[in-house]
């Protein structure tokens, strides 16, 4: 075989770098939406590679639900330091205190939906015209239809039926004042690709991804970590289990799986054998058949 070809991971990396450079060239004030999860860590890593030897030209924006794993916040701050990047925090707690939003009520109340307002406020307040995210098309069915460059109107809303056609690698980021774009450089990656890339590039990730002992409660078919924010009812039983997390989000809704995988290589093997999607452990996606699409229309990540 010819030596002039790229492996698929190299090709995906090159595609993502191309997209990140397009963002830098086409927008005035782009930011990376940084959750501390593996996908946004990979996006930040790709941005570092895209602009080397210059430093990463994007601010990192974190939408903080106030219900965090403490490990995630420490990881975020360390990474911001290492990259010498600017950090913008949009606080859901602040939005609640200011009366912009109110907490959901009921047994399965979460702050998931409240993030939308905080995110859109932070975008508007910081005059962000492009928010780069780690969304992937393999995550969820409505995301399978997402563009690399995804337009949001002045209310931050997505109109999935009226998306701009996206051909070849020509990205149309033209927009009017007040509108913004969401850009997804790793659209074409799968969960497996992300893990293989983390292993290949030796990328640091939060310890939560590795198997560890933790107090958990069995809720909605997964192990929800016990925390000061979790509302327990009389049937809930706190147990000590060896778990790891496939995704990292708000601590009250991110379910862990029982696992012994304590290295990236073991995780990659485990993921390859998985029979459930990673969002299968996210309570927020289980509310209805189109809950992700509904949230995305309103401006969700």
């Amino acid at each position, binding site marked *: 075989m010819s030596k002039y070809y790229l492996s698929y991971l190299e090709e995906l990396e090159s*595609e993502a770098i191309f997209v990140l450079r397009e963002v830098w*060239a086409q927008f005035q004030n782009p930011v990376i939406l940084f959750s501390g999860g593996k996908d946004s860590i990979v996006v930040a890593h790709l941005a570092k590679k895209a602009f080397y030897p210059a430093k990463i030209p994007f601010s990192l924006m974190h939408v903080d639900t106030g219900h965090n794993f403490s490990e995630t916040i420490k990881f975020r701050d360390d990474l911001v330091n290492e990259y010498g990047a600017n950090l913008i925090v949009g606080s859901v707690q602040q939005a609640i205190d200011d009366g912009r939003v109110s907490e959901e009520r009921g047994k399965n109340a979460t702050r998931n939906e409240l993030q939308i307002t905080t995110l859109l406020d932070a975008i508007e307040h910081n005059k962000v015209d492009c928010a780069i995210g780690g969304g992937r098309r393999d995550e969820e069915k409505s995301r399978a239809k997402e563009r690399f460059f995804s337009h949001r109107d002045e209310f931050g809303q997505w109109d999935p039926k009226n998306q701009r*056609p996206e051909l070849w*690698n*020509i990205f149309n980021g033209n927009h009017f004042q007040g509108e913004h774009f969401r850009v997804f450089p790793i659209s074409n990656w799968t969960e497996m690709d992300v893990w*293989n890339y983390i292993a290949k590039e030796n990328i640091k990730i939060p310890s939560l991804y590795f198997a560890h002992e933790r107090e958990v409660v069995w809720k909605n078919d997964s192990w929800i970590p016990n925390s000061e924010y979790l509302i327990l009812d009389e049937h809930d039983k706190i147990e000590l289990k060896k778990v790891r997390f496939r995704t990292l989000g708000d601590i009250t809704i991110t379910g862990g799986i029982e696992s012994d995988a304590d290295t990236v290589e073991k995780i990659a093997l485990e993921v390859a054998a998985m029979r459930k999607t990673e969002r299968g452990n996210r309570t927020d996606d289980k509310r209805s058949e189109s809950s992700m699409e509904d949230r995305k229309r309103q401006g969700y990540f």
Partner: protein
Amino acid sequence: MTIDKNQLLRFTTAGSVDDGKSTLIGRLLYDSKSIFEDQLDAIETTSKRRGHEGVDLALFTDGLRDEREQGITIDVAYRYFTTPKRKFIIADTPGHIQYTRNMVTGASTANAAIILIDARHGVIEQTKRHSFIASLLQIPHIIVCINKMDLVDYKEARFNEIMADYEEIASKMLIKDVRYIPISALNGDNVVNKSQNMDWYHGAPLLHVLETLHISSDINKIDGRFPVQTVIRPQNEAHRDYRGYAGRIASGIFKPGQEIVVLPSGFTSVIKSIDTFSGNVQEAFAPMSVVITLEDDIDVSRGDLIAKKNNMPEVSQDIDLMLCWFNNLPAKPRAKYKIQHTSNEQKAMIKEVVYKVNIDTYERDKVDKELTMNAICRVKIRTTKPLMIDSYRTNRTTGSIILIDDATNETVAAGMIV
């Protein structure tokens, strides 16, 4: 691990509800273990709620609420699966004529196209349409899957008949590599595993063909083209005078020491280094993203193109295109649009529509030449400044453009340079 070597293959499928496209994709995903239990559970629940018998795999490929409710595919959906040999990206597109633009979109990045033919019906209008789009978008490999062979008793004669009909279509178009596979997506014949019902077929099943298609040679390694995306200037202690040009190689092979020309200015220089985060490289080829530095301090910025000095693209303001119109609003005569070509953005005016193509009969209409939604027309445009172009046939990157309406910022058309 083999992931270090495995290639990526992007293929497109087009089809409507009845021709088994969803079943075929469902089978590829299911047999390669790319459908997860919770996804199956969700589809099962929905199938039951709708009163369908069994699991309706089409629900898996249709992502938006409207699509699921109406039971049709509207937009392009991207699906992924991996085998020990390759990673695959499927651009799953609708097949109906009113979604031509979505088929064009899905075809634009594909290395291969699967054309599905129902063995009972043979070559129909839709077959011709999909083939035309595959040829227009220069998809290098076409795999014709003659489906529902179980419904024609797995007869070789029927397969041969359809193959002969298709050969006639292929001969009218620029399709280089066509293969034929008799399948039954529903029963799994010749999809992942070789069929027990068709001993007369000596070829490989579909998945094997997808895994072994020779795609390395599809990349243009001759014409050195490097559209500059942005300029990297670190302005830090370690790299005070560093000035690098970032971009992705569109075609050809670049090496340090090569003489290059920067277009449109025409300044010449020599490549000093080709840099990546992991260090300098001695060779770079498509589709690598790199940073190129030059020996001379010349003016280079976004929109410029670096080419090899002895092999330059055409530099022109008058361009002939095959244009596919995407917008509800038809093009106004002599209207001006933004034109995006690689990293270059200019203005363009549609000077003349030469003819419109009927994509079902391939006839050229010189009377009705209106650029309406989904129309595919041969046009002449003029740009405000020269573009550095190649024909789409030789270069998918420097041979393609999009048009953007200033009033709405929408992408209204895609063009392939003739």
